[in-house]
């Protein structure tokens, strides 16, 4: 088990390095002087030369590469061209906000997806099952930005029950603990729902299939032969087995959630990494764009690592060779 985690840690670290390498070459492949992108156009050429020498940008490519990797690993992502502040401080503001949104969406999609999947499996071929099959297909095909707008139109503009943008109301700082928390939750509902619902639909389908596979197994018959009530057969014996491949699927849904956050943050004016990226692209703020890429990839890789560890904890049979066999 420890050996498994250690090996996966090393693999993840290698993956992070490769992401960095790809980002570096992407920067150098693009037309124009790549390093010019790291300086504000207003700075005089002499100053640029001086900084270049100090940062070693006049050194051969291979040396630059190692310096770049070194500085990224230390969390030094350079200076934002648009805001003239270290990229790191911009990220420090944005990352927690994106995490709040993404984790809320993750919890939502796991709870909704797993619950719907179990009910569909239990009531296989019922009206509910057929309906949720069609609904899942539909939800999966809806563009999230459009769904977001429609929900804003309905709940914010027409009904006026939920706020349409930002993380909290203006002046919310003056509210007491519980009222502030409630205010933030109200702001979280729509964006988290829009972000999580498509993944919830796919988790529900996988969960249904996984449960139906497991329910055919001999050990389910054994559990029934013991005289266990159906609830225990489902929620103890079947669920733990059916959840094993789902953990991997949840890990794989992370890139979708983080990518979706770009659009959702834009619609709901959520001050996270997605909005930071889009604004940085409008402003051609390259250091920010590349840093966000790295951070997001790092999150995805860490998330997959966590999913693998979760997989190993759930399945006592786990060995490295059987990893990801997930039927």
């Amino acid at each position, binding site marked *: 088990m420890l050996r498994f985690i250690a090996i996966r840690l090393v693999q993840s670290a290698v993956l992070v390095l490769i992401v960095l390498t790809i980002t570096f070459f992407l920067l150098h492949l693009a037309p124009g002087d790549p390093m010019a992108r790291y300086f504000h156009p207003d700075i005089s050429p002499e100053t640029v030369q001086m900084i270049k020498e100090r940062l070693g940008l006049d050194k051969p490519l291979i040396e630059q590469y190692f310096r770049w990797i070194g500085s990224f690993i230390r969390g030094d992502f350079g200076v934002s061209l648009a805001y003239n502040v270290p990229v790191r401080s911009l990220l420090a503001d944005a990352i927690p906000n994106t995490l709040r949104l993404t984790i809320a969406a993750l919890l939502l999609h796991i709870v909704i997806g797993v619950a719907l999947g179990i009910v569909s499996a239990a009531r296989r071929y019922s009206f509910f099952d057929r309906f949720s099959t069609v609904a899942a297909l539909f939800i999966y095909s809806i563009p999230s930005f459009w769904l977001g707008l429609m929900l804003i139109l309905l709940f914010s503009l027409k009904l006026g029950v939920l706020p349409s943008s930002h993380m909290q109301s203006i002046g919310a700082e003056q509210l007491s603990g519980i009222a502030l928390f409630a205010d933030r939750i109200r702001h979280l509902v729509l964006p988290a729902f829009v972000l999580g619902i498509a993944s919830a639909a796919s988790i529900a389908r996988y969960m249904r299939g996984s449960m139906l596979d497991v329910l055919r*197994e*001999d*050990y389910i*018959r*054994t*559990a*029934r*032969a*013991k*005289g*266990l*009530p159906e609830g225990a057969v489902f929620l103890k*014996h079947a669920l*733990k*087995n059916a959840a*094993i491949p789902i953990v991997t699927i949840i890990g794989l849904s992370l890139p979708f959630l983080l990518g979706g956050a770009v659009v959702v943050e834009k619609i709901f004016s959520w001050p996270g990494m997605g909005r930071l990226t889009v604004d940085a692209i409008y402003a051609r703020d390259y250091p920010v764009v590349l840093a966000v890429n790295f951070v997001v990839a790092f999150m995805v890789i860490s998330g997959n690592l966590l999913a693998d560890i979760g997989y190993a904890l*759930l*399945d*006592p*049979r786990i060995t490295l060779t059987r990893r990801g066999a997930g039927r």
Partner: protein
Amino acid sequence: MKGINMETLLRIEDLETVFRSDDGEVKAVDGVSFEVGEGEMVGLVGESGCGKSVTALSIMRLIPDPPGRITGGVVRFGGRDLLSLSEKEMRKVRGNEISIVFQEPLSSLNPVFTCGEQVREAIALHQKLGRRASKEKAIEMLRLVRMPDPEKRYKSYPHQMSGGMRQRVMIAMALSCEPKLLIADEPSTALDVSVQAQIMELMLSLRESMEMAVLLITHDLAVVAQMVDRVIVMYAGVVVEEAPLGSLFERPAHPYTEGLLGSIPKLGSRVDRLPSIEGSVPDPLRLPPGCRFSDRCPKRFDRCTEAEPEMFTVSSGHRSRCWLLAESEGS
């Protein structure tokens, strides 16, 4: 050896279980009747697909629905008809009064729980014991089935055990609530030959000490020969012969039973090839007319294809479903 006039524990009458398929309904069990007495050990024998396992699952009401369904008959056990119990009442019977041991111990044990937990669960459920007490009882059960180092093995997962140990866990689980009837569905078939004998011997000795009845399901008459009091032979969904062990081996009355006996190698007699029954089990959707065995029977005559024979009494406790007996009765 026990006689047949003991108290009846289980009485099955005209049991009928069907499975739906795309090509129509298949009667996997078609009017089966037999009895098991208290403390008696009965062998239920037949080729695979003859309905013996479906009979066992029907007694436990564990037929997967869909596609299967019990469509008729009575399963009388301890004064009640199990088929008319509510699901809740039936759960109190399963694992408590009637237990079952399946053929394939690896797939029959849940891979993500420890073996001990799976035994403990049954004890906690039926004996209303707390976690500590049920754990102690579970370890005791593991010791009873001669599991080496039971405290340590309590924490093992099924994949960490050998086939024989897994089957011991299944037996411990089945016997943990001291059932009146144990159904053993080919308990040793999936195991190595050397382990098979150990498991069968274990079951015999436990049966003695716990005074329970056993319904041993097997395709192998040789297994039955060592252990049971009485044998029931099934073919294509019906009982074709039923007899005390000695009577069956000395005077088999049904050609199918003769065929099964013929394929057992006898000690001391050297044969190059075991005689076996010609042909194969008929497709349940396309049974031959008349006697179900008629298309494979070496002693077939006109009457066999005209109507299905009833059960004829051969001697006390020995009955057989063959027209040859009607001929001899008549003459």
